């Protein structure tokens, strides 16, 4: 009963929030504002942490060490004198800390931990007390259960306690073994130390690593550790040093596997984010090329980089892409394929609404046109937004070749799309409903060939199309050479046997083969997949209502396509709605007549009106 009363009184009692003044300890203004806007750093998950345990264990450790220190006082004081003589400042730091401890008294938690440490660590900040930091890191990473997290304790210049945290296998061991630990342990490196700030001294004089930064918030430190960066914590400092030491195993740059070209660069993206970004930088040597890195996935937090040209990409588009990425509430985002699905405008439409490529030259051309390219860690495919239907028919070869050849192959692809989607359906309609269109000799020939076939045309077509799909899928799944063999076996032997067995007519083999070739002409895999599915829709419409059915199908499909948008850009732009078009988008013209900067997107230098500008 008293408990219930107490609970009720607690419920109705106002408790002012005891919020820590984070701004005192926050980093520079730009980083803070970025964090607040982006909400992209890991939240302070204070409720997951057992504070009592951390403080108790830290306190125990502190007490244990104090006992050891008092047990060997004489030895220690001698060493301290030596240390002071040799390094100067560390001894001062230790004495100051001891004074602070005495001033703070016993405190609520124990002898070694003062109120400031508790307040800082509870607010996700690095505490000056190293024992608290160790316990926090251990609990955060579930050490020792988590065995690939390495916490390496040591003394800086034999005097100041410190520890390194890194993930085994994600960092370059040489960096730690040759350029961090030896230099920090060597007392000679601290001879000239006379500054107030030891971290600053270490950055400037001790560690010879190209990229080192000071961070206070664990919400930023922990993701960095998980990315392969090494964190250095030093006793008495309320900041950690993040030392660039990333070095995972990675694949070397190879030729693209799915976007081969005859003429053009033969480099493809890899799974490594930094390599991919460098490949883009190598092509676009512009100071306006911006790379923003955002983590994705609630739990796996992979990095993806937004790459765009600051003076070309529409700021509204960039903002929208960032907004969508930040709003992804999905635990596990594995690669760009999953990210694409989480970013697209219309998940129920068949056509892809982003374009993916594994060619750096192509990605660079997207960036130059004002699109935003998203490079995702762990995927050799980068995605670009927004996209239109005409983009999906392009290949980087189009611009590498002379304009006449480029235009010719582009038209060939368009023909391929029409053939792949419509030919089986038209064939169905022709044979079922409009056989008068077929010239008499051809009709007789077809009838003769179909004489032995027991199935209606629709069954025959579906049988072959399904068999073709099986062969194609099987060919992809089995290893290289066997896959090719399977394709040949499927195409030749199965087709031949089916005709000989009287299951299908020879002309249908031709229809299916033409359809398949038409599909292979499509340069974008997602578009090719969509067309493969659409083909069955048209077969159905042709089978039930002939050309009229196909007209109905076309109307529904194209009207739906007209309604599609990719990041605010209509899918069939610049044709409908008409916008100021890129001269390269539909037909190729001689290069000197198609300036790269003039594109159909609403880039900052243009006003096609596709996006609603702020204030409009």
């Amino acid at each position, binding site marked *: 009963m008293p408990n219930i009363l107490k609970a009720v009184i607690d419920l109705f009692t106002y408790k002012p929030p005891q919020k820590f003044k984070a701004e005192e300890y926050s980093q520079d203004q730009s980083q803070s504002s970025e964090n607040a806007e982006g909400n992209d750093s890991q939240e302070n998950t204070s409720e997951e942490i057992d504070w009592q345990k951390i403080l108790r264990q830290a306190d125990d450790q502190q007490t244990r060490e104090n006992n050891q220190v008092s047990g060997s006082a004489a030895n220690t004081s001698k060493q301290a004198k030596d240390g002071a003589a040799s390094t100067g400042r560390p001894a001062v730091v230790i004495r100051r800390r001891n004074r602070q401890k005495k001033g703070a008294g016993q405190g609520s938690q124990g002898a070694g931990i003062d109120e400031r440490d508790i307040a800082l660590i509870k607010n996700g900040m690095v505490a000056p007390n190293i024992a608290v930091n160790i316990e926090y890191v251990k609990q955060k990473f579930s050490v020792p259960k988590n065995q690939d997290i390495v916490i390496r304790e040591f003394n800086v210049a034999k005097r100041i306690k410190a520890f390194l945290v890194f993930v085994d296998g994600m960092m370059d061991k040489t960096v730690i073994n040759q350029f961090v630990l030896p230099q920090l342990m060597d007392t000679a490196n601290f001879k000239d130390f006379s500054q107030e700030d030891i971290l600053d001294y270490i950055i400037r004089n001790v560690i010879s690593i190209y990229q080192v930064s000071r961070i206070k918030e664990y919400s930023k430190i922990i993701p960095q550790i998980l990315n392969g960066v090494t964190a250095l914590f030093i006793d008495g400092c309320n900041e950690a040093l993040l030392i660039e030491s990333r070095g995972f195993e990675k694949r070397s740059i190879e030729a693209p596997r799915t976007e081969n070209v005859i003429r053009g660069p033969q480099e493809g993206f890899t799974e490594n984010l930094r390599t991919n970004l460098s490949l883009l930088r190598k092509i676009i040597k512009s100071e306006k090329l911006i790379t923003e890195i955002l983590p994705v996935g609630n739990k796996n937090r992979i990095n993806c980089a937004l790459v765009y040209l600051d003076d070309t990409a529409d700021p509204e588009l960039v903002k929208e892409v960032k907004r969508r990425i930040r709003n992804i509430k999905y635990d596990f985002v594995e690669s760009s394929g999953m990210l694409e699905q989480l970013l697209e405008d219309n998940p129920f439409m068949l056509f892809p609404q982003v374009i993916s490529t594994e060619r750096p030259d192509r990605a660079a051309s997207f960036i130059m046109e004002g699109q935003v390219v998203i490079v995702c860690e762990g995927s050799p495919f980068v995605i670009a937004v927004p996209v239109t239907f005409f983009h999906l028919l392009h290949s980087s070869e189009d611009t590498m070749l002379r304009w006449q050849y480029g235009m010719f192959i582009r038209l060939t692809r368009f023909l391929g799309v029409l053939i792949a989607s419509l030919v089986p359906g038209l064939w169905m309609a022709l044979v079922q409903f409009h056989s008068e269109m077929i010239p008499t000799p051809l009709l007789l020939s077809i009838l003769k060939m179909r004489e032995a076939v027991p199935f209606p045309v629709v069954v025959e077509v579906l049988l072959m199309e399904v068999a073709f799909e099986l062969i194609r899928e099987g060919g992809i799944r089995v290893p290289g050479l066997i896959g090719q063999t399977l394709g040949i076996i499927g195409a030749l032997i199965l087709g031949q046997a089916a005709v000989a067995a009287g299951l299908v007519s020879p002309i249908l083999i031709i229809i299916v083969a033409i359809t398949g070739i038409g599909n292979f002409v499509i340069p974008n895999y997602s578009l090719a997949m969509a067309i493969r599915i659409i083909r069955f829709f048209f077969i159905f419409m042709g089978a039930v209502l002939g050309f*009229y059915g196909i*007209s109905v199908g076309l109307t529904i499909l194209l009207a739906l396509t*007209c309604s599609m948008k990719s990041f605010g850009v209509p899918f069939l732009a610049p044709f409908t709605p008409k916008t100021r078009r890129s001269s390269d988008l539909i037909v190729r013209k001689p290069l000197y007549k198609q300036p790269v900067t003039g594109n159909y997107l609403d880039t900052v230098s243009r006003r096609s009106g596709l996006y609603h500008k702020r204030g409009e």
Partner: protein
Amino acid sequence: MVEQGKFGNKEAIAVLVIACMAKEFFTDPNIIVRKVGTAGWYMVLISAAVAAGGFTVVYFLLKRFPGKNIMEIYDAVFGRYIGFVFSFLLAVVLLFSAAMNLREYVEIIKIYVFLKTPPVYLIGSLIVTAVILSFIGLENIARYSKLAGYVMLAGFIILLLLASSFFRFYRIYPLLGYGLKNTLVQGFLRSSIYGEITLVAIFAKSLHRIEDVRKVGYTSLIIAAALLFIMQLGLTLIFTYPFGKELTAPLYAVASLIHYGAFFQRVESLFLFIWNISTLIAIPLLFYMVLLIYSHLFKIDDLRPIIIPFPVILLTLSLIPSNIVELVQFYIRYLREFGWVVFYVLPAIALAMAALSKKKGA
């Protein structure tokens, strides 16, 4: 207020021209030959001139009340109740027109292609398309019209070019047909073949400015008149007028005449795509216009709840004519001959009333 979306002039022109032309591909050329003989090719120009006058009235009315559509203007001029009657009348005529055009189309393709298919089956598939397109919205119907418009225009021109080998210029005589007076009267009465141009008044808000309404209206009228003129002239040159009177769908008959060598023949099915797709745009457009007027009349903010029940009415209306003869000689005839009252006269009354009462938009 239903959000219709904005689209450009080309999209609007495409959708209006297709709406005008779709119904002219079937029995109308036959009726024109019956009414005016060999003078059909310039009768359509007389009708266009009358329609231009009618559209000018509509344009002045819209200009007097900028930023408003025709239903809002009727309300502003006549008040809520009489305005309601005017708008309702327009909706009824459009719905009836959609139903009759639908039935006419189905009857024709039943005669030529789907001999054994029940009409409900064909009507049903078209109504399903209308429903889907209505969900997608006017903006996308217009965009699709532009996309399909170029292809259909190319197909139409190819059809006439291929059929040009059958042109015989002596068939144009007698030039005055059944007499000039008769041609003038029929031209005036049949001005409603361009009545769909005035649909721009219903979706005026989807265009950017009032000048766009003018451009879209007159350009659509000119293109539709030119196409009808070419079509009617081509038919006059291909079929002698006594023979032309006997053809149910003269344009389809023209397509079936085309043959070049033993291989390229009987290609009329290929040209089916032109009338199929034009009908698949025109009827959903009329249907959508009815929905817009209805939603205005009963102050419905969202079209979706009424998209499902309205097809039932459309289907029911389309099944009223018992056969094609009744459909053509009664329903379509009166729709064409008196449709202009709703398309041009009602706006004229509204304009006169607004002028007399000195009512103007903001």
